[in-house]
């Protein structure tokens, strides 16, 4: 495939960090309910949204991901009681820091999606995919290779 063709066929790559207890179940429900959502997302299951180290996010951008979504249980619903409260603090800061160094705000997002919110998972993924598709491939923080 030539470079031009590759550019024309470009599809956004989106990484979703999904917490095992809520968002992963939500994604599962979306599938069970036959809700269509774009195949651009790669769902990565983590035990808790608190597991998502900020370095994972930067690494994803380095290695060619165009958008990152961190998703977990709604505050108060964490399987480990308080994990997502820490996530909230950490990513409120991280989001601002990423914007401060020039990453577009759409490229890094966080959402609370519970196990019963299949339609919400579908909707969030659709939204993000459309936003990223409109913006084009991510060049920032990218590894040259």
């Amino acid at each position, binding site marked *: 495939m030539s470079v031009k063709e590759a550019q024309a066929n470009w599809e956004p790559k989106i990484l979703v960090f999904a917490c095992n207890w809520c968002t992963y179940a939500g994604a599962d429900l979306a599938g069970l309910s036959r809700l269509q959502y774009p195949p651009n997302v790669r769902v990565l299951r983590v035990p808790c949204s608190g597991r998502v180290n900020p*370095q994972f996010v930067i690494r994803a951008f380095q290695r060619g991901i165009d958008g990152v979504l961190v998703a977990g249980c709604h505050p108060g619903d964490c399987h480990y009681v308080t994990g997502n*409260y820490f996530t909230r603090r950490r990513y409120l*800061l991280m989001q601002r820091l990423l914007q401060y160094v020039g990453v577009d705000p759409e490229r890094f997002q966080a*959402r609370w999606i519970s196990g019963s919110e299949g339609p919400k998972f579908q909707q969030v993924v659709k939204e993000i995919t459309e936003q990223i598709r409109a913006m084009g491939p991510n060049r920032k923080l990218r590894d040259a290779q």
Partner: protein
Amino acid sequence: MSDKVKKMQEIAREILEKGEAKVVIGWEKGTHWYLSPPAFIDKPEEVERLVWDDFCHNNLSKYLKDYVNHEGKVAIFVKGCDSRAFNRLLQDKQIERDKVILIGIPCHGLKDQDKAKELGENADIPKAKKCVECRYPNPLVYDYFIGEEKALDEVAAASEARDFSDVEAIETLSPDEKYEFWNKQYERCLRCYACRNVCPACSCRECIFDQTRVGWIGKANNASENQFFALTRAMHVAGLCIECGECERVCPMNIPIMLLNKKLIKDINLLFGPYDAGVDVDGKLPLGHFDKNDPEEFM
């Protein structure tokens, strides 16, 4: 020789002669008139080397980490920012309070070494940037005290005039301009890790950047890996940075590292309420606890 220096040497001599501490860490005159590097004094007759002038920038508290396994006590001189660094290490349980003798010196605000080098000895040298914005010139914790505490109203005036204008200037740029700015800065980074080594907030037993086999960070020196380093370092000291500005001072490439740290400090204050690291030893760290009423943006 000023009274303060005399007093410093007197106290240091007394401590060493009595054997209260095995070593006194202070500052001495360096190769150039605008350098005052750290001095490690272990003999009473060597206390004459100690000085206190406009260039005693080094934050001595970090050296305490080298003495963790030594027997006996260590005495160090602390300025306002050094005492916050001491509290910081104490809060992380990196050092023991009883093994350290602190000699407090209220700081009058130090002068910029780079400008001094440029302007020459007789010129009117401006204060270092971190010292213009300093809100803690008086040591917060000490066993001995030299001189007089800086008047509190002066300090209060400095706190009110807390200046984030440099951070705000970058915030108003467009994402692409911001990226270009930071890319230019971190393209120069040598990854010498001097900023980490000197930082009183960095006290992990094994730093993430040294865990080469885990593969957190590549060995290649390119903009992408350097930015990974910059962002990760900034996140790791979020809520711990005491604004001593040492990282920026030691950077051989003059990268404005404090602009990243100050951004995080600004956001922590804005999001989670006012917080100054290294002031309260028993307090909770901003990222080490949470509040159920934290701002909610992820619905």
